[in-house]
């Protein structure tokens, strides 16, 4: 798939590198994130990586008065994408997260997947997960991909979820950093502070392992 570049409203441009969750597209997002971060386009306010896309938010007044607006920036984005990479992509950190698998939805997930609770725990904690990007809440990391045997649908109606709750949704897993309504199936919880000093523990490109704990 060729890169798709499109305007997101009047303040941002999104570059879409693919249309499915994969390590290949993820690595491309990370490389481009660091490329645009180390040598930003004029008027850049934010760089927002996601599963297969990178969005650049611009200062509208600045780019409109000096660079023919977003249309002009789109040309600059295309030029930059054609350049060879020069940015150094940092090696992501590995986080070991102690997890108490006693979530309120563990039993329901086991039934839905046709597995025992201990199999769910084993399968979930066996794999190392990639932090694809942060979004939804400050410090909330979209991680994946989970083993297809533990793929579950979101809840139909969101419920209140507590900080440290570990959930599943589709082939993703994640930890809620703060209290929030959410539709993910909660299978466990951790005491690890995901917002130490108010800053997110996880960064895009990090990897996470869940270490089962006994209560």
């Amino acid at each position, binding site marked *: 798939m060729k890169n798709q570049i499109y305007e*997101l409203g009047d303040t941002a441009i999104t570059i879409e590198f693919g249309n499915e969750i994969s390590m290949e597209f993820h690595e491309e997002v990370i490389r481009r994130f660091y490329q645009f971060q180390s040598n930003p386009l004029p008027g850049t306010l934010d760089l*927002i990586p*996601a599963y297969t896309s990178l969005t650049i938010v611009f200062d*509208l007044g600045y780019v409109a008065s000096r660079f023919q607006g977003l249309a002009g920036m789109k040309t600059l984005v295309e030029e930059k994408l054609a350049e060879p990479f020069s940015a150094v992509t940092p090696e992501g950190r590995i986080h070991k997260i102690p997890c108490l698998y006693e979530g309120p939805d563990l039993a329901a997930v086991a039934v839905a997947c046709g597995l025992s609770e201990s199999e769910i725990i084993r399968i979930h904690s066996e794999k190392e997960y990639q932090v694809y990007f942060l979004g939804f809440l400050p410090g909330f990391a979209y991680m994946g991909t989970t083993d297809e045997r533990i793929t579950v649908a979101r809840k139909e109606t969101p419920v209140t979820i507590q900080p440290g709750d570990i959930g599943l949704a589709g082939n993703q897993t994640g930890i809620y950093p703060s209290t929030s309504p959410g539709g993910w199936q909660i299978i466990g919880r951790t005491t690890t502070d995901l917002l130490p000093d108010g800053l997110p523990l996880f960064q895009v490109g990090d990897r996470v392992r869940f270490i089962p704990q006994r209560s």
Partner: protein
Amino acid sequence: MKNTKKGLFDSLQSLPIFGLQHQGIPPGGGMDTFSLQLANALVGNDLYDKVLEMHFPAGVYEFETSTLVAICGADFSAHLDEVPVPLNQPIKVPKGSVLTCKKPVSGMRVYVATRELKDEQVARIKIMPWSMAPENVLSNDPIRILCGREWDHLKACSQQTLLSKDFAISATSNRMGYQLIQDPLKTAFATPLLSSAVTAGTIQLLPSGQLVVLMAAHQTTGGYPRVAHVISADLPRLAQMGPKESLRFTLTDPMTAEYEWIFQQNYLQQVRNVCALKLSQHRFDHH
């Protein structure tokens, strides 16, 4: 200013703070950034300074020093020491004066900018003899939108509905987003999307066929189809609309969106320059 009675939803707000969205931290900021900046301009502050944003019922505030104050945005029938005072006009206020908002007349959010008058003892409330009327900048025309990436997800008849029918604003609307009430819109196809970035003004199509306009306190990413985007210049106007009101959308183009934004920003800068000059002359006249 000292808060003597809490409002329903008072907070100090500045312009959005960018640079942390890759950590899932949204830019936030005031809802009606035009009124926020106008209030700052009228008292000679920097346009991005923090101001008090209040909803109705608003809090009661007592001034602890001689202060220059400007009230912009919603008309909540603002009173200083039980005397009604105008919007969009700088006012000199003595120490001990009390600001109250009596009733919601129009608009959803009021912005109060203040500047301490360090070398002046104000004896009584004095309304400065100049005002800035933002009516020529903010109109009552339909809210202007740009097509979103997933505009085609709407069936042609629903695209027509979006551009021609009235949408009511749901009572559940807040600083994060406005839910709009209409007969459910129809989707042409239902391809699930991967989450990606959203911005203030992004109009998402929910699975129920209803629309949500993301506002100042929106999340950084979302996975619903982005059918359209409210242009930045019209977000302040939308931010002053509330439940029981209805709105219409009209399509515009990126050139207009950029022109309107620059027009507003230039207006605010001019107001700030004029007010700074008048304030310095005014002080000179009385010394």
